[in-house]
């Protein structure tokens, strides 16, 4: 009997073992010792479980076990075979909302408005179509991208024309605050099957404090009015929302979840503040400690689980990213938490000036005056210069959890990833490994639920499969 490669770590009174493809098993401490020293002496049911999950193998089955494990590992890393799928285009830095934490350093000042020109947009489209990926997701960002709706329409039309030749599957996403919304917009979104990603920061008072209205009208009322219009005339499944947690919402996250449920949202992404843009400058005023965020996150996750068990479907997206990797053979598609990192190879950002960046955070950093991660420009560099260039390769090589010293032996390696820009920013701000602490504590929280609460496991499966909790309980 031989042990296949695994990693381990303590979860409460048990030892969690995980393997390269993300399968996991809990062992009591005495059984873990036996697993290490003499696996043949494990109780038969446990030994069989460990064999079925490729932690142990009978010597005569070694070749089969390695082949199977390799297939599972390749499946987990399938995002590598497609190359860059997500292409983010920044249309403008102009915005009609003054969010107190704006990560994109958007501006309501006309003098600071940088927008994508038609000529640069055309070049961006030609770049995008050179991606070897057969499936593309094109996401429009800002500022507020709908303020440059004509450019968005031009890009979609030009991409459609180019695609007669390339024949790729193309999805579109617009990240909009939903303050500017017309019937023309709606028809356009419907025609091209857009997904709409918006922001809702909780109940009215929190939302309007975080996302200050530019005019006197409540931002909250307008967002919900337009959200209802999308649901009624398009589809509630095509719109999702993000909750950015400020110090105002941190103690009231349960109320924020209630607001989402009341307005018919089926998912909520609880996002802590990122140290970019205005948020970096106002972190002292708006921020909170990682410990406070994690305590609040744990509390609200408990609450979300209770709601689901009472029959109210509401999925937490950050947890779902990890759960997808823990409970299924697949990765999550979330480019900020994967290894090798998504930077450039899964996601790329085209800025208004034609600059190419490996992630949204990289262009946010550049907007703050630090263009360390700029890969080149669509106006002066070839696709090969950028995507096969040493700068991108070095970025990827230097940020693999599998070989990062800090991650050595960590059992969460199969579920985790390093965002190179975030790591750089954390080091610069002298808070190294903040993301590691955040992710590892959230993963620990999820494993604790899986270990202690079989009902929670059913809720998690309902989030991943769309099958209701009640059906899974039958």
């Amino acid at each position, binding site marked *: 009997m031989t042990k296949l490669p695994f990693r381990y770590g303590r979860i409460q009174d048990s030892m969690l073992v995980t393997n390269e493809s993300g399968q996991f098993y809990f062992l009591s401490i005495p059984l873990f010792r036996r697993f290490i020293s003499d696996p043949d002496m494990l109780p038969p049911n446990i030994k069989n479980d460990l064999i079925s999950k490729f932690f142990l193998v009978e010597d005569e089955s070694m070749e089969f076990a390695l082949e199977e494990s390799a297939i599972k590992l*390749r499946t987990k890393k399938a995002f590598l075979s497609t190359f860059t799928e997500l292409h983010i285009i920044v249309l403008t830095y102009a915005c009609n909302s003054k969010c107190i934490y704006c990560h994109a350093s958007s501006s309501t000042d006309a003098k600071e408005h940088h927008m994508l020109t038609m000529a640069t947009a055309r070049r961006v489209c030609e770049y995008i179509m050179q991606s070897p990926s057969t499936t593309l997701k094109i996401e429009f960002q800002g500022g507020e991208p709908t303020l440059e709706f004509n450019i968005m329409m031009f890009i979609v039309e030009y991409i459609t024309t180019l695609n007669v030749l390339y024949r790729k599957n193309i999805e579109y996403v617009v990240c909009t605050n939903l303050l500017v919304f017309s019937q023309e917009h709606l028809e356009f979104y419907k025609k091209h099957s857009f997904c709409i990603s918006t922001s809702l920061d909780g109940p009215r008072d929190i939302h309007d404090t975080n996302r200050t209205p530019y005019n006197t009208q409540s931002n909250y009322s307008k967002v919900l009015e337009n959200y209802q219009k999308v649901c009624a005339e398009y589809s509630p499944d095509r719109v999702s929302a993000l909750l950015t947690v400020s110090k105002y919402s941190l103690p009231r996250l349960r109320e924020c979840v209630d607001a989402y449920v009341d307005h018919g949202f089926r998912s909520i992404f609880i996002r802590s503040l990122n140290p970019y843009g205005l948020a970096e400058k106002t972190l002292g005023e708006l921020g909170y400690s990682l410990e406070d965020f994690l305590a609040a996150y744990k509390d609200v996750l408990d609450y979300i689980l209770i709601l689901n068990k009472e029959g109210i479907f509401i999925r937490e997206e950050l947890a779902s990213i990890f759960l997808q990797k823990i409970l299924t053979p697949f990765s999550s598609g979330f480019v900020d938490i994967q290894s090798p990192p998504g930077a450039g190879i899964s996601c790329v950002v085209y800025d208004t000036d034609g600059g190419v960046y490996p992630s949204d955070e990289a262009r946010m950093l550049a907007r703050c005056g630090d263009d360390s991660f700029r890969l080149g420009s669509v106006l002066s560099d070839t696709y090969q210069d950028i995507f096969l260039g040493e700068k991108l390769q070095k970025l990827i090589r230097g940020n693999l959890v599998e070989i990062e010293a800090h991650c050595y032996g960590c059992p969460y390696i199969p579920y985790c990833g390093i965002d190179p820009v975030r790591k750089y920013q954390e080091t610069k701000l002298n808070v190294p490994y903040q993301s590691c602490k955040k992710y590892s504590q959230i993963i620990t929280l999820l494993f604790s639920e899986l270990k202690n609460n079989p009902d929670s496991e059913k809720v998690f499966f309902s989030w991943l499969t769309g099958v209701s909790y009640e059906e899974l309980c039958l």
Partner: protein
Amino acid sequence: MSESITIAKNVVSKRALLLAYGESNSTSSIEETDTHWVLTGPKEQDSGLSNQFFRLCMEKEVKLALEESMAPLREILYRKAFEPISKRN
């Protein structure tokens, strides 16, 4: 007063020591003699922290030994998963 402890080099390897050092805040500096590591803790630290650090070193030593024993199989696994078929043994 800050507390110092010495650990024989044949008990804890440099790699285990560094891994533990990276994870712990109970040690502020490490010095090396021919035969020992000399660890100094931050001022006014609880003397129990040195024991905790030593325990962490030993855990890292075990982890290193296990990781090393699995390295050849892990390499085969990654080759099988990602090398082009034409390059596999």
